[in-house]
Each structure stands twice: as C-alpha cells, then as structure tokens.
C-alpha cells in the first residue's frame, strides 16, 4: 500500500512541479506549486513524519504560497507582462538550472553521489518517540546553535525589508 501511494504521490508531485514551469499564467503556476507541495507532504506522511508533513503544508502551502498569490493578484500580472519583461533573464536562469540538474543526474548515474551514513533516527525510533517529539528534541539539543542562528538570520532579513520598503520611518 505505501509503495503504491509513493508512486502515485511522486508522479503527481513531479507532474505538478513540471507544470509550474510550463504554465505561462502565474496564477496557474501557483496552483500547481500548491499541488506539488501537498503531494510532498503526503510523501512525508508515508515516512511517518507527521510533524514535517503538517509543517510543510502550514508553512509552504499556507503561508509562503499565499504570499506569492497575494503579490501576483495585487500586481495583477498577466501573460503579456512577463513576455515583455525579463525573458533573457529567465532564459539565463533556466539554462543554469538545467546545467545543475544535468550535472546532478550525471553524478547519480555515474555512482559518484550516494546516500550519506544512516543517522540515529530510523523509522522505528521516530515511531516510538513520536515525530514531533523527535524533531523538537533534535532542534533544541544537537542543533540548537544552527536553529537559533537561523532565527537571527530571518530577523535580520525582516528588519532589512522594513528598512528597504520604508525609507522614512
């Protein structure tokens, strides 16, 4: 059963991710990105990582994509606007992305990129401790410094945005 679900969810996720890029209309791109994120949350659920699945939906689908949609709606972006502006930029970015993807695929196929060593959190350990508890413990013990450093980083970004957006406070 999980294997079948895995293939269905991965197929939906990849197809949606592809459609995000292939769509010319920004709102449709956002909708497909949402579908892709929700499928990804499903994959986390199969792995027994309920907390990560919920966080994936709440943070990425619920907050970040809503902001994307918000901006697109506010600017009322249409197909023509995008075709006029920055096509060369999109082409450059796209070709860099393609090169990186091909490099990664080549690395995997040549056997140069392999899985890292197995950490202490196997599926059984997580199932016993509870995913939320396991993530919480890891975040606030082993990874306390990176965790706090990230929050400072985000705070700095936030203050930076306010200063850039509102020159006269």
């Amino acid at each position, binding site marked *: 059963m999980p294997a079948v679900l895995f293939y269905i969810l991965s197929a939906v996720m990849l197809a949606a991710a592809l459609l995000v890029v292939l769509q010319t209309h920004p709102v449709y791109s956002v909708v497909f990105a949402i579908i892709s994120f929700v499928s990804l949350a499903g994959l986390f659920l199969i792995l027994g990582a309920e907390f990560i699945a919920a966080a994936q939906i709440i943070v990425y689908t619920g907050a970040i994509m809503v902001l994307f949609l*918000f901006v697109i709606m506010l600017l009322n972006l249409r197909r023509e606007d995008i075709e006029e502006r920055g096509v060369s930029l999109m082409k450059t970015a796209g070709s860099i992305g393609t090169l990186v993807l091909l490099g990664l695929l080549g690395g995997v196929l040549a056997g140069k990129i392999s899985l890292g060593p197995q950490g202490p959190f196997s599926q059984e350990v997580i199932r016993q401790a509870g995913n939320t508890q396991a993530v919480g413990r890891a975040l606030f013990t082993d990874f306390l410094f990176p965790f706090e450093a990230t929050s400072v980083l985000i705070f700095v970004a936030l203050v930076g945005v306010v200063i850039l957006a509102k020159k006269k406070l």
Partner: protein
Amino acid sequence: MSVLWWLVTLLKVGVIFGAVLGIVAYMTLAERKVSGRIQLRFGPNRVGPFGLLQPLADGLKLMFKEDVIPDHVDKVIYVLAPAISTIAAFASYAVIPIGPPTDFFGLLPEPVPLQIADVNIGILYIFALSSMGVYGIVLAGWSSNNKYSLLGGLRSAAQMISYELSLGMSIVGVLMMSHSLSLTRVVEDQSNLWYVFLQPLGFVIFLIAAFAETNRLPFDLPEAEPELVAGYHTEYSSMKFSLFFMSEYAAMFTISAMAVTLYFGGWQGLPGLGSLGIPPVLWFVGKVVFFLFFFLWVRWTLPRFRYDQLMNLGWKVFLPLSLLNILLTGLGLVLLE
C-alpha cells in the same frame, strides 16, 4: 485493520459528516431566528412548525436556481475555488473527539474512540486545513475577474494569515500544559480543571482571532456589503454560492468545537462535579451549541471594524499578547514543576 474496523470507521465518517451538514443547515435558520429576536422580529416561521423546514426549502431553492458561470471568469479556477473551501472546512472534523471511547452498549467487541482519527498532530492538522481554506476564498476572488471580488479575496488573504498567527500562538499555551498535539490527550488532561481557567488570556485571544479567521462580524471585511457588494462570492450563484455559505458555517462549527476541546474540557462534564449523569456526547454538543450561539449573538450586537483597525489589532495587540501568554505559561510551568 479488520472488516469491522473499516465498517466502524466508515460509519463514523458518515454519521459525523451528516451531523455537521445538519448543523450547518440549521445554523442558517438559527442565524435568522436569533437575529430576528435580537431585532424584535419573529424570523422565518412560515415553512413548517416554527419555520423548522426553512433550511430544506432554502436548499431546494438553491439547487434549482440556474448556475450561472459568467463569461469573463477564469473557468477552471472559478469552479475549483468553492470545492477547495468546502473540503478544507469539512475535513477538519476528522480529528475532533466528540466523546470517550465506547463499545456502544456492548454492541462492539472492544471500545472505539468517538473520533474519526486520533492523529498525534491533531491541532496542526486543523491548522493545515484552515490554511488551505484561504485558497478557496483568494482564488474565488481572483478568478471572478471582478474588482469587488478581487478586493474581497485580497482582504481575506491578509486577514486570515494575520489572525492565523495569533490563533496558532494563543493555543501554544494549551499545548505546553498538555505536552501533546493530540486532541484526545488535551481533553483527557482537562478532567479536573478546564484549561480556560489556566489560560484566560490565551482563550480571549483565541476567541477573538476565531472571529477574524471565520470572517464573521465584527471582522467580516472580506464580504462587507456596503463596500464590496458580496466580496469574493459576488459572481457565484446557485450551489457554488451555497458551498461558500456552507463552508463559512462549517468553519464556525470547527472553531467552536476547537474552543470547546482546547479550553472547555471537550466531552468532559463540569470540573469538580463530573458529568452529572449526562452522556459525554451531549456535553460536547451542548458546549458547541453555546459557542455557535455566541457567534450569532456577537454578529447581531457589534458593528463592523474598519480594515486598518482590524490589521493593527491583529499585529500590534494580539500577536504580542499571545507571545506574552507563551512566556507567562512557560514561567508558570517552570516555577510550579
């Protein structure tokens, strides 16, 4: 997972879904009855005894109305939006416990929990679904290709994101005390003392944010009729319109059920007095009905806020207060343990 498990689960899904649909239908009647009484009128009383068949008549009317899809809309998203709203609103009930495990008077070999699924991230599940519900409204506003709808959609997106934050932060206090995200655990922890007595500040923030989250007066700016016609559902008709209508009432029921579960002991009886011989399911339903009435009561009592007041209140008052609540709860837990 035996055949019996599947049968019981399907039955639970059917019964709870049916009950929610019934409550949503009768909420529309209750809304008009309560508003009538508050304004010294009778409210609908022509269809059936005391107007009790009014929701049925309304449902039939809505179903037989012509379903107009205007020419200028983005058809795919226009049709998708009400579906997203409805699914997000109705799927939330899956994790709300409506009673203790029961074997139905010896009918079943072992007790089953009166909850469709006791997932250990119950609260996060509800938040995830309610954050998906925003899309229904935003996409409806955008796809209608109408400036009133668009403004309504934008307002609702901004409002729901802002208040989701206060809502989420306000219940962190409860989670810190119960040490669990599972709603069953939260209810079991409240057998002696309801969390509302331990978390008064958190509860007040939760309740006020709940009004904003469900787009109800005094925070119903996404559909403020003097400014925005009907907001995001201006262009919708027939059953598509009623899907939005139903999901608004379903969201009210979800948030009432959450308030009862998180702060008022769920299906538990009165603190100290026990259940007084009343079945736990009735305790749960009674408390939820009180909160639903409270929603109506507030709607017909308070005027609407202005949009900037609403946003200022959310970001500058409720968010700092909910953070303070977390700090106080943490201090209390450390000092008492």
